């Protein structure tokens, strides 16, 4: 905090020497106490429900805690914890590739996120551009296209599993009519991944579409008219009027999209199944499986969780910086 002392026409308080730390703290409290009182409930809730578990998660990732050595109560007997502090061991094991397939999973997670968000955004933008014109049945199209958003994700995922079913699925029934053999959509590794992306794209496009449509409508029509008067082609208008006008909306929805998709648990977990090891798992579902299947490896799961969080944080910081740099260039 700076105590502003203006050089010309100093206010009466300017006479006073720079106040002591305690006085300044009190003065700051006097001006801001109601703001602090208003945020207090949230701070308490966040500390208890997020801060403390996060701290414990970080701690667990430095230990070798698992189901067998963690403190628990069976009936009336309380068994104390016996896990030990192992330092950076877990991180070393994961990052050096000794344990599991961190890098292959990371690659797939990044590919999954990038392809989903790319498709969400481009399809959403395309549909929004189409819907932004004056035409018949516009509101009908809008309702129909938003429909996937209204379906809870777990319901939608189960429905798609039924559609993808190898033996009785409707997709293969159509293919059979066309003379193609049955395809094991959810069995084969590559097809599994493609199916998962398809389901997630189906689920996510409506949000992008509605958000971008809102952005499109906030671009003043005069800008387009002016560009048209100046002889800009439709492509030039799109490139130099529409896209820059969408930038604030795009920035937010892409950031949200990346975070949501990176952490998208339901689609992968419910579509590909809780079955044995599969290469189509993303980091989040793998971490979940570590914690709750077989011998519960709490430490390993916590390590993965912290790594995921760090990756997202780094991304968010760079992304925001990139956006603000673009902003200042303009």
């Amino acid at each position, binding site marked *: *905090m700076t105590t502003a002392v203006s050089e010309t026409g100093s206010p009466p308080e300017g006479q006073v020497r720079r106040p002591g730390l305690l006085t300044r703290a009190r003065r700051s409290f006097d001006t*801001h106490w*109601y*703001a602090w009182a*208003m*945020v207090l409930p*949230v*701070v308490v*809730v966040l500390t208890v*429900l997020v801060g*403390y*578990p*996060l701290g*414990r*998660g970080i701690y667990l990732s430095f230990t070798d805690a698992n189901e067998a050595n*963690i403190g628990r109560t069976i009936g009336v007997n309380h068994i104390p914890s016996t896990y030990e502090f192992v330092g950076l061991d877990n991180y070393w094991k994961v990052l050096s590739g000794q344990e599991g397939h961190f890098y292959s999973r990371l690659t797939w997670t990044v590919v999954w996120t990038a392809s989903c968000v790319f498709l969400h955004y481009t399809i959403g933008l395309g549909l929004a551009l*189409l819907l932004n*014109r*004056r*035409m018949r049945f516009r509101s009908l199209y809008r309702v*129909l*296209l938003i*429909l996937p958003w*209204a*379906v*809870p*994700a777990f*319901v*939608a995922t189960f*429905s*798609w*599993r*039924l559609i993808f*079913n190898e033996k*009785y699925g409707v997709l293969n029934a159509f293919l059979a*009519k066309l003379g193609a053999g049955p395809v094991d959509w959810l069995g084969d590794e590559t097809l599994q991944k493609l199916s998962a992306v398809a389901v997630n794209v*189906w689920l996510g496009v409506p949000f992008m579409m509605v*958000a971008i449509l809102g*952005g499109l409508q906030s671009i003043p029509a005069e800008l387009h*008219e002016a560009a*048209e008067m*100046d*002889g*800009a082609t439709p492509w030039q208008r799109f490139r130099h009027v529409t896209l820059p006008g969408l930038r604030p*909306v795009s920035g*937010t929805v892409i950031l*949200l999209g990346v*975070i949501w998709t990176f*952490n998208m*648990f*339901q689609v992968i*977990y419910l579509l590909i199944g809780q079955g044995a090891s599969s290469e189509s798992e993303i980091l989040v579902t793998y*971490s*979940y499986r570590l*914690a709750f299947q077989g011998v519960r490896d*709490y430490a390993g*799961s916590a390590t993965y*969780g912290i790594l995921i969080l760090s990756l997202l*944080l780094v991304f*968010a910081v760079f992304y925001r910086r990139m956006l603000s740099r673009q902003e200042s260039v303009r």
Partner: protein
Amino acid sequence: MSAMSPGTTGPAKSRPRGERSRGVSVALHTALIVASLVSVFPVLFVVFVSLRGRDGWQEPTKFVGFELSNYTHILNNTEFLTWFGNSVIIALGATVLGVLVAATAGYAVSRMRFPGHRPLMWTFLVVQMFPMAVLIVPLYNILGRLELLDSYTGLILTYCSISVPFCAWMLKGYFDTIPAEIDEAGRVDGLSPFGTFWRLILPLARPGLAVTGFYSFITAWGEVAFATQFMSSEKHYTLAVGLQTFVGQQKAEWGLMTAAAVLITVPAGLVFFLAQKHLVAGLTAGGTKG
């Protein structure tokens, strides 16, 4: 923008602005019809299968044997209604708690510049980035020690960790759209900061509160990971957990699953369509104005 002299005329146009040729119109409608079909088909298909009786799903291309047996079966012979009630209680609890706690903070962050303002905004954003994988193990252990596993309270508290930062973020965006002059008028008329918030801003923000609440309700309604691990007895399952029991490793009661899916989606979908217009505005508003 290219600087052209005012005298230059643009390319000659045969149509007035805003009109389009027949070919373009056909292409436009075709594209939209195809997209609509893709988006509607799975939903209609599920409704269709649910009306086909218990084994109808094995013949997905036949249009015979319509009956309501799937619906009567899940309503009478399964715990579906219990799960439905559980989901409603838990989602409502998380929503009410989340909105109540978050409202004042959203207002403070929107109107006042105080030390800790920026870190708090960052926290709201960062916490939304938390993968459930970070919190699920510690929360599981902590709730286990407090004997709150397999209870409504435990799951409601867990969902608050998701809904509170989210609600605060959304509400901040909404409060930003209410002109600050209203606050000033209230202050001039002698209201305290709390009075301004409580008697002027909250009533004005009712649509925002509704949308925020609705969104956190839907999030809790569809949450799978926490519910699957934390609720272990069938009596306490939420819908997301219960639905998994229809289609497990051994059995595949797709007929029942689809009927349940329809019953889950209809109420959520109806409310959704009422709220969706405001939803995106709230979501993106918080982000664009840091």
